[in-house]
């Protein structure tokens, strides 16, 4: 572990730094400096213990998001530092007439829907299977986590090859099924195909992780509920939808919110699916350019940080809205009652 033995506390009374003598039985005497140290220890040290978290988070987590709002209201160009000052709502106004932004927003939503829905449904099925009495249980559970630990960077590059037009294994497998035999699918050329390819990567990555979250919740459902349902003649599907899903509803909502936040910020997959990732274009015509990618392009390719900040604030609001709507819908779907 870490070697940070000298922690930021008051010096301990009667003990040289590094001394190991036990101080058994030495109670603080009233009125002395030892009492004061004791009081300090009990009253203020807790704040010292939580201070690093709050300080670091305030400076590098919270402040940037708030400051982002300020940057969004200013001119801020990396290539022209003199062009500075208030822009008012100009950046936001520009946003509403920016075709690139709405294209990116549509792509983001398209890929988000294609990934979240199948991902969570499959995770549910995988979880309910993992919840059965299995041999080699641990092996299966660790196995479904392979995608989770694989860097998205690496997996996207692999899928890039899998979805290559002429030599990709995806087209080869489809041709065995008689699809695209004469004209192989050019996955990167159209919106629908690039969205499917990217959604496949996202699904691949997160099904196992979500399945484990569901499994954890499923394990606390009492067995007799299922037995009663089985006696009443409910099959596995009915049991899954009528018992399991309503009973793990909090976790379902949690995963829906989580994948909304993640899905709408999609960055690595669309970036590296491109033949020339550094440009952040998301295809020749931006077929699959997501908002996060567009923010990167506007900020660090076009060097317009002010406008990029406005975009990220807009995305933030969209995420909040969608996450809230999703949470409400999921709550209804699961039966709605507490």
């Amino acid at each position, binding site marked *: 572990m870490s070697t940070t033995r000298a922690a930021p506390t008051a010096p301990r009374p009667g003990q040289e730094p590094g001394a190991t003598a036990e101080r058994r039985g030495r109670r603080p005497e009233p009125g002395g400096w030892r009492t004061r140290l004791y009081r300090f220890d009990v009253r203020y040290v807790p704040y010292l213990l939580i201070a690093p978290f709050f300080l670091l988070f305030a400076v590098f987590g919270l402040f940037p998001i708030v400051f982002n709002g300020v940057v969004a209201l200013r001119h801020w160009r990396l290539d022209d530092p003199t062009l500075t000052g208030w822009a008012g709502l100009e950046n936001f106004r520009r946003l509403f007439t920016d075709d690139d932004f709405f294209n990116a927003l549509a792509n983001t939503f398209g890929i988000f829907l294609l990934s979240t829905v199948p991902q969570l449904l499959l995770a549910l099925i995988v979880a309910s299977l993992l919840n*059965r009495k299995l041999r080699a249980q641990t092996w299966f559970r660790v196995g479904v986590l392979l995608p989770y630990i694989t860097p998205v960077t690496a997996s996207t590059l*692999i899928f890039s090859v899998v979805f290559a037009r002429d030599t990709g294994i995806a087209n080869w497998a489809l041709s065995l099924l008689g699809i695209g035999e004469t004209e192989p699918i050019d996955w990167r050329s159209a919106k629908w195909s690039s969205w499917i390819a990217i959604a496949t990567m996202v699904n*691949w990555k997160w099904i196992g992780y979500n399945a484990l979250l569901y499994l954890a919740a499923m394990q606390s459902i009492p067995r007799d509920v299922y037995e009663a349902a089985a006696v009443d003649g409910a099959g596995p599907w009915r049991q899954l939808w009528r018992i399991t899903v309503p009973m793990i509803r909090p976790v379902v909502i949690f995963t829906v919110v989580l994948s909304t936040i993640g899905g709408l910020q999609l960055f690595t997959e669309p970036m590296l699916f491109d033949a020339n*990732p550094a440009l952040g274009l998301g295809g020749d015509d931006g077929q699959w350019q997501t908002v996060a990618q567009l923010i990167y392009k506007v900020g660090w390719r076009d060097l317009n940080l002010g406008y990029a900040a406005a975009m990220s604030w807009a995305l933030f609001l969209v995420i909040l809205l969608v996450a809230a709507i999703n949470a409400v819908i999921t709550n209804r779907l699961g039966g709605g009652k507490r």
Partner: protein
Amino acid sequence: MGRAPQHMPGTVWTYLFLSVVIAFSAFPLYWMFVIATNTDEALAQIPPQVLPGGQLVTNLREVFSMQDVFFLQSLGNSVIVSSVVTASVLFFCALAGFAFAKLRFKGRNALMVMVVLTMTVPNQLGVVALYILMGRMPGEGGWNGTLLAVIVPGLVTAFGVFYMRQFILDAVPDELVEAARMDGASTMRIFWSVVVPAVRPAMAVLGLLTFVATWNEFQWPLITLGGTDYPTSMVALSDLASGNYVLYRRVLAGALVATLPLLVMLFIGGRQIVRGIMEGAVKS
């Protein structure tokens, strides 16, 4: 909570379906290996080459000798970043988790609610401002382009505080803390001698999860380290895949190297990682 017994035993179909899921999970990794060990010609074949070839060493040598990619340095950088971040997250989050779980102080509950709320704040959306902030840090040219820019924002996580608090609540009995206090132990002493030994398993899990997450991070490192000779391995991978003549056998040989440490971690700590994810889920 009492753990309910698992219900029905798996049928043949259960095993079959799950095996397909595992195969689907493992396939891209296998495919990475196939490509990383083959030649260009083998990869242009139809039907595709499905077996590993003998070119791994050649491909790797090319990756490590590529100009402007700094692959070897990038691996070192990733090790530094991930190790420092992991050690720091473990230390600071255990400290804060201990305070929230076992110490009494004014505002404790309100502050804990704040920690939970911060878990929902998507840091990614502050990247523009974070970049500007890093540019203003002390030192010539600020911290952008240096490892500090990647390390410092990761030093603590709200999830870590939350996770350690949950575990310490259960794993460290109040009486033990009281007894240590009666014996005259200071708060820090209690932390080192009572809490840390009791929560080693949770720290192992949090450490594994943090290491994996940090190692895999891409967007922020790309923004702050992209185009410098100080990339992390993920940024170096994207450099490998950029340019006009991208050789995928080379790209995926690099990806293989950058993934290997995590595969080893999953192999060694798989059971702990699974348990950690599942425990985090039930309690949140």
